[in-house]
């Protein structure tokens, strides 16, 4: 028997593309946010509303990841923003190589922010860096307030938590303890920014827009 020490990073192929993406985005001075959530939390609705509301001020493009269909990209294009659809044909997450190809197809010159809407899944996308500036986790109140403790990884790694569909709380049709989610999300991630929003009614969206503006205004390399 011969034992050989290797010490090689297993996902290095993905990491190399993530570095390429990051270099491209830095060179072009674009910010890139990777949205991760369960299916149906409202990622596309949040993006469509954000793009529409900030249309005069911030130019955004979207990379859409789904197992199948062009539905989400079409919803984004209806706002007149550019969108590239990636169909993963069964894969549970986007890879940095797929995002690299999509970045080359987006009109980066005319954009300020690139959003990546990952495949709906709270686990797998967390493990694949895409070259983004940060992850944004979306949790809708209908999913229940136990998600930060059940899926701690994505809450620990995200810069922002958007708690969507809060209009359902005012309507008193779901049981969801906002304070519990805030406390659990901050247990491992003290600096996570938390915005309760409703992309449907617009409630809370101004605070989220404020965060997007602040990020663009911050000095960059």
């Amino acid at each position, binding site marked *: *028997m011969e034992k050989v*020490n290797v010490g090689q990073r297993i996902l290095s192929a993905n990491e190399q593309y993530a570095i390429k993406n990051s270099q491209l985005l830095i060179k072009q001075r674009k910010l890139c946010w990777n949205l991760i959530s369960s299916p149906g939390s409202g990622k596309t609705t949040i993006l469509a509303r954000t793009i529409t509301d900030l249309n005069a001020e911030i130019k955004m493009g979207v990379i859409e990841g789904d197992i199948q269909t062009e539905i989400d990209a079409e919803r984004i294009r209806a706002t007149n923003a550019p969108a590239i659809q990636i169909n993963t044909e069964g894969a549970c997450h986007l890879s940095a190589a797929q995002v690299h190809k999509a970045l080359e197809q987006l009109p980066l010159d005319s954009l300020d922010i690139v959003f990546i809407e990952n495949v709906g899944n709270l686990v797998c996308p967390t493990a694949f860096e895409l070259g983004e500036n940060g992850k944004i986790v979306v949790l809708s109140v209908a999913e229940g307030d136990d998600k930060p403790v059940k899926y701690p990884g994505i809450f*620990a790694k995200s810069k922002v938590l958007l708690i969507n569909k809060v209009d359902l709380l005012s309507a008193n049709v779901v049981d969801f303890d906002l304070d519990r989610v805030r406390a659990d999300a901050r247990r491992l991630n003290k600096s996570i920014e938390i915005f309760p929003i409703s992309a449907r009614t617009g409630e809370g969206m101004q605070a989220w827009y404020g965060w997007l503006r602040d990020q663009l205004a911050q000095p960059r390399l």
Partner: protein
Amino acid sequence: MHETVVAQNMVEAIAQEARKHEGRPVRAKISCGELNAVNDEVLTFAFDAIAQGTPCEGMTLQIEHKPMQARCKQCAGTFPITLSNTQCPDCQSDDFELLPDAPLVLEEIEFEKE
């Protein structure tokens, strides 16, 4: 389910390393951080399936999970942290910063000489 991608990358990395050595790879040890969300059973199943017909067929996997680590902002010590216990064991402070999760690493391969 991303374990299949991890397994695919492992088979490729081991096959590449195997070309530089004599003998047949029989065991591999990998390590990963908690946040990689690697499930041992799923990864082993995926690895066995993907390894068929490659030099990795029949290999045994050993998977080491590295705990999440945090740095205490009061005493600057590092300590393993869990959701249920976020207190620094030295100074009992709850003011910490989470350190980057350990990456997925192919640590070692054992080759059996013919």
